[in-house]
């Protein structure tokens, strides 16, 4: 059989094209202000999550890829068979090299473990004492938010409840309790923080904050059935005084429409209503 001709130039050109395309694609993340761009972080949590990736992983990973792939392409070109009867030296291995490329990556990777563990601990801490507490409940296919701090209780002592659009003050930490009334969901506002799954039957916690006022969109990230794609939410960050104004307005509306009213309840929630489901699970039952 004839040896196929694959010129050196073609191979080099192709690999350059690939690299260029990769660079172009990735640069898209860095600059753009798209609504759910995880790289356009606007909160402490999202920023930390992005920075560990960029500073500790993306760069080294790109270098490793270019070096290893470069060596592979080089070898493919350099060592092409020239004649049918050439037999190269039968090298079986080299223990020193083996040890080197076992131990060196192991050390590099263990270094990587440091920011990982540090990051986990930091993101996993409980919210600060002065945090605003919101209970988030995932329902098929809506998000319910309840302001748990006593000062935002309505006339009946029930927490103020809103759906799909939640307002938060900027520069204040938000402590979230995350629950599910039916199946699994995952609460996610990419520009503010990574996700936390909502697990039916138990409560999960996370915290986040927003640097600047703005409207941050998010959506359910755990497949939850028919309308999973439509289970979207918006987190509106406002200056403290504007937020206060907004929430007092909501409370006034709430009083006007009477207790237990489900006018703004979920259109397609479970029959027993959202209040039953998430209300009961005990706090911190995360024995799994």
């Amino acid at each position, binding site marked *: 059989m004839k040896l196929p001709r694959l010129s050196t130039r073609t191979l080099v050109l192709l690999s350059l094209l690939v690299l260029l395309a990769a660079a172009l694609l990735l640069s898209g993340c860095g600059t753009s202000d798209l609504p759910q761009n995880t790289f356009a972080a606007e909160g402490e949590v999202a920023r930390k999550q992005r920075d560990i990736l960029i500073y500790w992983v993306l760069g080294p990973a790109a270098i490793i890829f270019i070096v290893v792939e470069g060596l592979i392409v080089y070898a493919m070109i350099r060592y092409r068979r020239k004649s049918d009867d050439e037999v190269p030296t039968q090298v079986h291995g080299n223990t020193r090299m083996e040890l080197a490329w076992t131990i060196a990556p192991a050390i590099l990777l263990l270094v990587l473990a440091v920011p990982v563990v540090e990051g986990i601990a930091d993101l996993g801490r409980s919210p600060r004492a002065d945090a605003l507490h919101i209970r988030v409940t995932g329902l098929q296919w809506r998000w319910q938010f309840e302001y748990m701090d006593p000062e935002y209780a309505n006339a009946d002592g029930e927490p103020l409840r809103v759906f799909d659009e939640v307002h938060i003050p900027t520069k204040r930490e938000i402590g979230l309790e995350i629950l599910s009334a039916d199946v699994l969901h995952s609460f996610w506002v990419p520009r503010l923080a990574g996700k936390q799954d909502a697990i039916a*039957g138990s409560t999960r916690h996370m915290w986040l904050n927003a640097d600047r006022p703005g409207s941050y969109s998010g959506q359910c990230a755990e497949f939850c059935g028919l309308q999973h794609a439509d289970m979207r939410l918006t987190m509106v960050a406002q200056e403290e005084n504007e937020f206060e104004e907004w929430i007092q307005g909501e409370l006034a509306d709430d009083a006007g429409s009477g207790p237990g009213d489900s006018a703004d309840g979920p259109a397609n929630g479970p029959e027993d209503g959202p209040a039953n489901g998430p209300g009961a699970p005990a706090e911190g039952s995360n024995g799994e």
Partner: protein
Amino acid sequence: MSHADALHTSTGLDNRKLLMWLFLASECLFFGSLIGAYLLYRGDHEVPCVAGELSACVFPTDRTINGVEYQGLFDIPFTSVSAFVLLMSSVTMVLALAAIQRGNQRGLLVWLFATAFLGIVFLSGQAFEFTEFNEHGLSLSTNLFGTTFFVLTGFHGAHVTVGVLILLSLWVMAARGRLTQEKSLNVELAGLYWHFVDIVWIAIFTLIYLIQP
């Protein structure tokens, strides 16, 4: 699967015997997973109840089923006897294998039958226990205990049933003179399976019946 295989395998171990050991190793993971699920839920003494009355949710360590007080769900002496019966069947299994390896056809017939019989006695005990629990209102869907208990012990019972069928098949073969000394491997393999099922029961008996929370 021919017997000549044993003569020239790379490890010297018969193919079928190696297969049986691998199968039993795999079975360990199977029962391990079932037991794991049972143990996970056993810790939940008072699982928060979202719907229905509390009793439906509670692992019956407080001896209630459907809200009715029930003194002692388990009849420990009864189950101990049936566990003992199953243990004894392992002894008779060993005797059956010893018999065929010595070419003692009569002994083989007797001990194979004894093993199968003891297995059937154990299964009858299990059937009685299941009926008894059911009459007290405990079913697969009553609560987490019902679910994990019936599925775990049920799968064990299914394994014993398969074992009894194998033993009876061997017994028929032996009775027709087709299970000769050189085919003792068949009995050995059945024995390996039988002892395994027996050991699994010791684990289940200890975890479910003896160490109650």
